[in-house]
């Protein structure tokens, strides 16, 4: 623990020996390609596949009508809504799957895609989520009996009346309308699968890009059980994954069609989507329209907050949230500040856009919540002309207030927000920066400093509240130590680059004293790994990491018994140091863990179970609450409004850190994924529902040039309830960075009177904003 061990998995990756889904080649394998809708909303009048089927090598063209015969044309979403596998009559978004071609070769399948004639009757798409609620808006989900509007659900939490009263009486009230853009995880590996159905054995092996293989196996059994594919006949293998970030949690129609095709034809079927399909049809993230308000005193005490959300879910609610949380963990939006009253509400609507709402490197809508609270906090500071750092210090939940009950019902486990912000301010030399800024403002130069001091909520989650499709959100570890003292450990999670093969081995090494190099970690094969809910929402360390520690402790208890037997002393006379038990007061009388393990197979005490294995399913007693203090410094060119991130310091508190190098790597990556929506990325749709940037040519993933040199550090406030005091780190930076950047840019534009800008903030948006405000030519030099 706490050691920057080099990653065990890297050897295969740097040699090009990683094994990803598209690398799977099976004898007789067929290829699937998908015909997609060119329209956002249209009736399918007919599908004519005759020309496509005439191409040599094309074996089948699967349509919704074909699947309907097996009742496979619709499937459930994780949020108890329904989603089309293939449409029988209406397409609901551009790039939606319409038909699938199965062919002997990839190129032939692609050729055939252009020969499937689909006759559409185009309808006027509903694109704007606010207009979707208009009384005269067409009802999109006509498949739902009795549905008379496009409203999906309403959700609320907090103290409505008290909050309203405070707002009515408060000295200061600030309010901003914010949009958290529709973005895409854009992992460099797209999604895909190889479905291999063996007719003779009625067995399906599914190689696929999934972050949650066990849950997927259950879903497959639920969807296809009625045609004989029951859970014991399904093996899901999630090989190496080229980045997941939440985008590989959902069940996409392509997977189901591939299974259906393999089932019907009896041969393996490979489906790998291309980049434009990935961006245009796979689950989006975010797309929350938030009205955020804060009430406080003139001298800077926060009294209450109010947030109202309109969530654009696309044509179905296929968000990846725990069942009881339609807005995920959005209610963390009271942030790191101590005030007793808050009220939040949200409404979700259907539009003619792709479904989704995945937790993109974020614990279920935390990013949206953090953006709202951190932005409105800065807005409040601006209103009362108080330094935003001081305002935060004045309102932080203090270290000794933990466990802290939040007004929206959470119990924050631990934190030291002051320490984090102090360290970040020291690192950037905050006071000096403010002096420099004052000088620059005299000259009319644009420099901004932005803060974000956020609290995350991760590690879903305790079984009393958290489930997905009814399955509780525990996670698992199984450790088997071989007679020679080497081990294999298997988990219900699935790394997509997080380095589990190294960090889990380190946890077990710490608890059991077996060198991490001697512990092989395996995940992703449902035939061998214990059941778990998978890797997303920063839950692996808080759940499976904890399971590893507890399972290792079970083994250590067994080791103690065996050591006592071998050393012929009482268990109470033994003391543990990593790697061995020794007799108190006689350290030369000891047994190493390897000797003990060997004995468990060769010379175990009578009456004791032989072998050295343990499994644990960990049900966390609470969530963990990592926090961070981020400071961003930007310079903006006054002529071109080009934004340059000069410095970015990120101080995270994720409790005890298992591997500082891996944790830091997670922070670096997360920060660039926070920079992306803050300044570059957004999926843009026109009024007809056409996506305008559905390729990597115009969906701007930051390169090494846009990405600054990140400066990172940490404070350590262990989680009191986690077996090793860890909290989870993978997502904090993606959550915390956007408001720090937005706050810095808005701060830079203060001389113009700008109070808010929606992300992504681009030079053009600044130009337009200033032009619309009529201040483009304002002389801002104070000197």
């Amino acid at each position, binding site marked *: 623990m706490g050691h920057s061990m080099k990653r065990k998995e890297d050897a295969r990756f740097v040699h090009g020996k990683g094994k990803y889904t598209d690398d799977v080649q099976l004898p007789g394998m067929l290829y699937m390609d998908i015909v997609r809708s*060119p329209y956002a909303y249209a009736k399918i009048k007919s599908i004519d596949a005759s020309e496509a089927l005439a191409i040599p090598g094309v074996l089948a063209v699967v349509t919704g009508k074909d699947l309907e015969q097996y009742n496979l044309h619709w499937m459930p979403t994780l949020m108890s809504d329904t989603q089309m596998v293939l449409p029988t009559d209406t397409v609901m978004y551009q790039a939606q799957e319409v038909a699938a071609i199965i062919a002997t070769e990839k190129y032939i399948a692609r050729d055939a895609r252009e020969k499937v004639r*689909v006759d559409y009757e*185009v309808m006027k798409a509903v694109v704007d989520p606010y207009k979707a609620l208009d009384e005269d808006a067409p009802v999109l989900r006509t498949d739902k009996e009795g549905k008379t509007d496009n409203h999906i659900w309403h959700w609320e939490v907090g103290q409505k009346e008290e909050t309203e009263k405070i707002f009515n009486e408060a000295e200061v009230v600030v309010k901003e309308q914010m949009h958290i853009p529709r973005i895409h995880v854009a992992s460099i590996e797209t999604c895909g699968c190889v479905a291999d159905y063996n007719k003779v054995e009625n067995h399906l092996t599914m190689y696929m890009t999934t972050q949650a293989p066990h849950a997927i196996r259950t879903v497959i059994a639920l969807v296809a059980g009625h045609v004989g594919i029951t859970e014991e006949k399904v093996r899901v293998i999630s090989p190496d994954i080229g980045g997941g970030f939440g985008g590989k949690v959902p069940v996409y129609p392509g997977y189901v069609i591939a299974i259906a095709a393999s089932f019907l034809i009896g041969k393996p079927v490979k489906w790998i989507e291309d980049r434009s399909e990935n961006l245009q049809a796979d689950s989006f993230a975010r797309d929350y329209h938030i009205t955020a308000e804060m009430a406080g005193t003139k001298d800077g005490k926060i009294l209450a907050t109010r947030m109202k959300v309109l969530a654009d879910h696309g044509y179905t609610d296929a968000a990846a949230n725990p069942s009881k949380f339609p807005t995920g963990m959005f209610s963390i939006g009271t942030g790191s500040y101590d005030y007793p009253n808050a009220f939040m509400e949200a409404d979700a609507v259907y539009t003619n856009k792709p479904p989704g709402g995945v937790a993109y490197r974020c614990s279920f809508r935390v990013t949206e919540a953090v953006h709202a609270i951190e932005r409105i906090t800065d807005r409040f500071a601006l209103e009362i002309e108080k330094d935003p750092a001081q305002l935060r210090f004045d309102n932080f939940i203090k270290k000794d207030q933990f466990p802290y009950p939040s007004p929206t019902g959470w119990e924050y486990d631990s934190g030291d927000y002051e320490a984090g912000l102090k360290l970040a301010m020291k690192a950037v030399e905050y006071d000096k920066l403010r002096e420099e800024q004052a000088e620059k403002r005299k000259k009319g130069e644009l420099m901004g400093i932005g803060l974000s001091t956020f609290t995350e909520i991760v590690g879903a989650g305790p079984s009393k509240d958290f489930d997905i499709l009814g399955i509780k959100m525990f996670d698992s570890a199984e450790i088997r130590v071989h007679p020679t003292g080497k081990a294999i450990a298997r988990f219900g999670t699935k790394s997509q680059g997080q380095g589990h093969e190294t960090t889990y081995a380190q946890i077990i090494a710490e608890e059991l004293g077996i060198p991490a190099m001697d512990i092989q970690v395996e995940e992703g094969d449902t035939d061998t790994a214990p059941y778990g809910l998978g890797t997303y929402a920063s839950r692996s360390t808080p759940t499976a990491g904890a399971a590893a520690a507890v399972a290792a402790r079970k083994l250590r208890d067994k080791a103690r018994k065996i050591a006592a037997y071998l050393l012929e002393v009482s268990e109470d006379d033994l003391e543990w140091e990593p790697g061995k038990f020794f007799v108190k007061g006689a350290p030369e009388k000891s047994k190493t863990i390897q000797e003990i393990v060997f004995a468990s197979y060769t010379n175990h005490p009578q009456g004791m179970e032989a072998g050295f294995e343990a499994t644990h399913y960990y049900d966390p007693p609470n969530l963990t609450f990592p926090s961070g203090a981020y400071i961003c410094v930007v310079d903006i060119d006054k002529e071109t409004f080009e934004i340059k991130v000069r410095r970015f310091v990120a101080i995270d508190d994720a409790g005890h850190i298992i591997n500082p190098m891996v944790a830091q790597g997670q922070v670096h990556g997360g920060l660039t994924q926070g920079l992306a929506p803050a300044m570059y990325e957004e999926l843009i749709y026109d009024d*007809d529902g*056409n996506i305008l940037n559905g390729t990597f040519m115009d969906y701007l993933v930051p390169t090494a040039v846009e990405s600054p040199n990140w400066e990172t550090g940490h404070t350590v406030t262990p989680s009191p309830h986690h077996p090793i005091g860890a909290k989870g780190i993978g997502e904090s930076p993606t959550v915390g960075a956007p408001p720090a950047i937005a706050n810095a840019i808005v701060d830079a534009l203060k001389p113009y009177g700008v109070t808010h800008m929606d992300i992504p903030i681009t030079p053009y948006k600044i130009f337009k904003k200033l032009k619309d405000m009529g201040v483009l030519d304002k002389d801002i030099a104070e000197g």
Partner: protein
Amino acid sequence: MEATITKNFTLEEPIDKVWASLSNPMEISSCVPGATITEKIDDNNYKGEVTLKFGPVKAKYDGVITIDEMDDASHKMTLKGKGLDSKGKGNAEMTMNGLAKEEEGNTNVDFQMVVNIQGTLAQFGSRLINDVSAKLMDQFVDNFNALLKGDEFNNDLKAGSMVGTAVKGIFKKKEA
């Protein structure tokens, strides 16, 4: 995605000659870049193909052109075109209003064209449609001039140059 393109040009030819060609669907279509009339259904309806290219995406529309108005006295015309991409990428609709006027022995022609493209092409086309369409219109005028003069011309789609011009157009705007 809808775009409106207007074009006003003067031809050094008498109006009767210009109108004769302009009102003849076979002749006028031969001047439209990338367009071919493949079949006459009746006097007012024709079947044809139009190829368009926006950056990386090429679409070939199979469609029907309908003459809504053709007034030989006032030299006014309205054409409607409706097409479907032959590879399933979407559809396009076009309404063109034309008016020819005599101007000191020459002929002034005023065109207004409203194009509505739906489907995949609209993803790529929205930023290019105005520039590409303007270029197409220029090419059409050149071709039409050549036709009247009896010069040889061809109405192949000058794809490369169109995209080039469109890109230049974008940069020109930035400079301005």
